[in-house]
């Protein structure tokens, strides 16, 4: 059972490595979006410091959205998805492996570079660990929810646009609690409540999203 999970995980990570330009594009997108804000709202340090958590979270969310459509598109086009659906192993298993590989290749790089971007916006040092923690808990939720949307819009004309319309509203709670955690930490009320909610959301998404995703994939390939 674990061998299918590991085979899909290993293959998707290998593909991410061979097509690493895509990963770099996502990362560059994240950096550029963050850099746009000082141009737009002005280089007033206090203002930038105040909006930093929100800006970083929105940029991370958009970076995730940008690469979501790639999650199943290639496998759908070349017939791999059909073969996976014919596997004797349960579909939730390899869906989980695909989402994990997706998160490792897009979420992790964004989390890794987030401290540098936080520095750019002059986020207070105390907020940095909470920012990392909230991204580490929140981006997997984005990947899991996004995977359901990607599976539902698979093979549709203009699927990318529809995907954004479908999943962005679902991302709102993650954004509220993710950015809220950093703000709460900086204002002195403590981020524990926000982080616990994010953790609960992650547990719920882990339990439900792979099943929904597998069902959506069956519908899309029918």
């Amino acid at each position, binding site marked *: 059972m674990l*061998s*299918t999970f590991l*085979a*899909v995980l290993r*293959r998707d990570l*290998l*593909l991410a490595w*061979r*097509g690493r330009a895509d990963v770099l594009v996502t990362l560059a997108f994240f950096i550029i979006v963050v850099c746009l804000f000082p141009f737009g709202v002005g280089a007033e340090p206090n203002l930038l410091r105040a909006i930093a958590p929100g800006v970083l979270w929105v940029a991370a969310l958009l970076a995730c959205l940008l690469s979501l459509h790639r999650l199943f598109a*290639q*496998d759908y*086009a*070349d*017939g*791999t998805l*059909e*073969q*996976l*659906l*014919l*596997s*004797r*192993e*349960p579909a939730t298993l*390899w869906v989980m492996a695909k989402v994990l590989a997706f998160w490792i290749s897009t979420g992790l790089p964004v989390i890794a570079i987030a401290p540098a971007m936080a520095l750019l916006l002059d986020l207070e040092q105390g907020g940095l660990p909470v920012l990392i923690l909230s991204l580490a808990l929140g981006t997997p939720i984005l990947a899991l929810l996004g995977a359901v949307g990607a599976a539902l819009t698979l093979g549709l004309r203009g699927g990318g646009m529809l995907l954004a319309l479908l999943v962005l509203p679902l991302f709102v709670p993650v954004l509220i609690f993710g950015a809220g955690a950093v703000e709460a930490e900086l204002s002195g009320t403590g981020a524990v409540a926000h982080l616990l909610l994010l953790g609960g959301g992650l547990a719920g998404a882990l339990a439900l999203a792979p099943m929904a995703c597998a069902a959506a994939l069956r519908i899309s*390939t*029918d």
Partner: protein
Amino acid sequence: MLEVQELACLKGDRLLFRDLAFRLQAGGLLRVAGPNGVGKTSLLRLVTGLALPESGEIRWRGHAIRREREAFHGELLYLGHAPALNDLLTPLENLRFACSAAGDEVDARRCVDALVRIGLANQLDLPARVLSQGQRRRVGLARLFLSASRPLWVLDEPFTALDVHAVADLAATLSAHCEAGGMVMLTTHQDAPFARAPEVLDVGAFAC
């Protein structure tokens, strides 16, 4: 073994065929025939369980495949129109992944042997994007050598893009699988040199 009753297939809002029925026993080789667009591929996808029929039932060893999906898929090998190859991976990586994704434990040595046997000895380490159509098709077909334990083979146009020798080899492999008690269901538009003439199912006879 494989039993299909009163099958109807809806594509979009058009009924492709209805009341389609057939039975495939151990050792049987069934060729699905009919003109383009009559629903041959759709029928194969219904039999594999990838698509759901409008009405009718498909039974494997007496059980509806809808209820025993995973057990059925453990005994099925389906090779569709798309060869399920990723361009960035080598034939060997593609084949190993295909086997482990299907749930079969196959070591690298047997995968190499299968690829050599199908005539890709010199392409083992090339990315799949540089392969020709026929070579891409062969990578998919190499799974046949590793799937003897799966009794039911469902193949969509397996002979497309293959040269004369490869067609003869493939026909011999399929005949041998049937000899050994397996079952093969395939679509093709060309005459292949099978050891024993296949049964023919004309989908056109059930068209609406």
